[in-house]
């Protein structure tokens, strides 16, 4: 039941229909960060469709996606895997106490050249 709820949420907030996927794997062929991920873009699509959301939610892969949209741009069937990955990550960080990045971690990460943009973006991606 829980699982179905997550699947529903992921589908709703991503606006993606994983059934459109024809399993060509072009997303994973395009992904620049493929080697850093446990689950790869094409797996996100099929695992969301199979309702295996929790497996994805506990994987560090959700924080490795660069949201560079290469998979979205090149998908021949307009499935938009990056939107699914984002939605799975949101399912995690929207839960109480699940922020991936905490403000008190920031100071040690800073260096003097680091642009604000990086901190702002990371906050938007990793916290709620």
């Amino acid at each position, binding site marked *: 039941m829980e699982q179905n709820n997550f699947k529903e949420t992921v589908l709703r907030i991503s606006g993606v229909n994983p059934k459109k996927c024809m399993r060509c794997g072009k997303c994973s062929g395009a992904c620049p960060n493929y080697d850093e991920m446990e689950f790869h873009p094409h797996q996100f699509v099929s695992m969301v469709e199979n309702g295996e959301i929790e497996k994805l939610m506990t994987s560090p892969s959700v924080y490795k996606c660069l949201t560079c949209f290469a998979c979205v741009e090149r998908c021949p069937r307009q499935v938009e895997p990056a939107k699914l990955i984002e939605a799975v990550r949101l399912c995690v960080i929207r839960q109480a106490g699940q922020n991936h990045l905490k403000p008190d971690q920031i100071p040690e990460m800073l260096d003097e050249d680091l642009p604000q943009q990086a901190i702002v973006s*990371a906050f938007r991606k990793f916290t709620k």
Partner: protein
Amino acid sequence: MTVSYYPGCTLKTKAKNLDLYARKCAEALGIALEEIPEWQCCGGCYPVAKDEIATKLSSVRALAAAKEKGQTLVTVCSACHNVIKRVNHDMQTDEEIRDKVNRYRAPDEPYEGETNVLHYIEMLRDLVGFDKIKEKVVNPLAGKKIAAYYGCLLLRPGKVMAFDNPENPSILEDFIRALGAEPVLYPARNECCGGYLTLEDPEIPKKRSETVLQSAQNHGAEVVTTACPLCLYNLQKNGGSEIPVVYITELLAEALGLK
């Protein structure tokens, strides 16, 4: 001609050169950049989820402010540009988001994506014209081999950004040509630099940025140029190369003799 200008947070601090020369050059090219009063940070990343409303408001406020003045909204930071253009696209096409945003803001007149959003480089091409820039160049960057680095933010998603061919863009190369330099075409110019992951795990941007600079150098680049402060940071810090990385506005200012 006067346009609304959205500088963004980083241009006020770490990327002052991007902002400073953007203003100077625009003035020299006959375009007044009118900074939007009390603009708010765009958030750095476009909120992808369909149920994100609050995170889109700052962009909508800037867009609506430009609409009120009847001006085009110009951004120069690639990230701000990506966020604002995509939020604008949502306001044009997604009825639910449009409705919720307008209910929340409750303005006199609802905002429905009327503002035209241009990146600074698009402004140079469409409002000024690269030909005119060529005429105004006093200090041509002749002989310099410059690699344009687009990254992901300017180009994708291609249909929404409508910036250039997302897999084989040419706008920055045309710009470089207008400045008298020689553009370098290399395949990694639209690959990601690793972005904000540098905060958590610099190893990833390191691999990505090294790939980008390697590819640029393989093809003979002497200088790399970008419009994004974070790309600049990653290429410089994580790129593992001494090759200079500069903002597009710095190149422009140099060629126009304003630096």
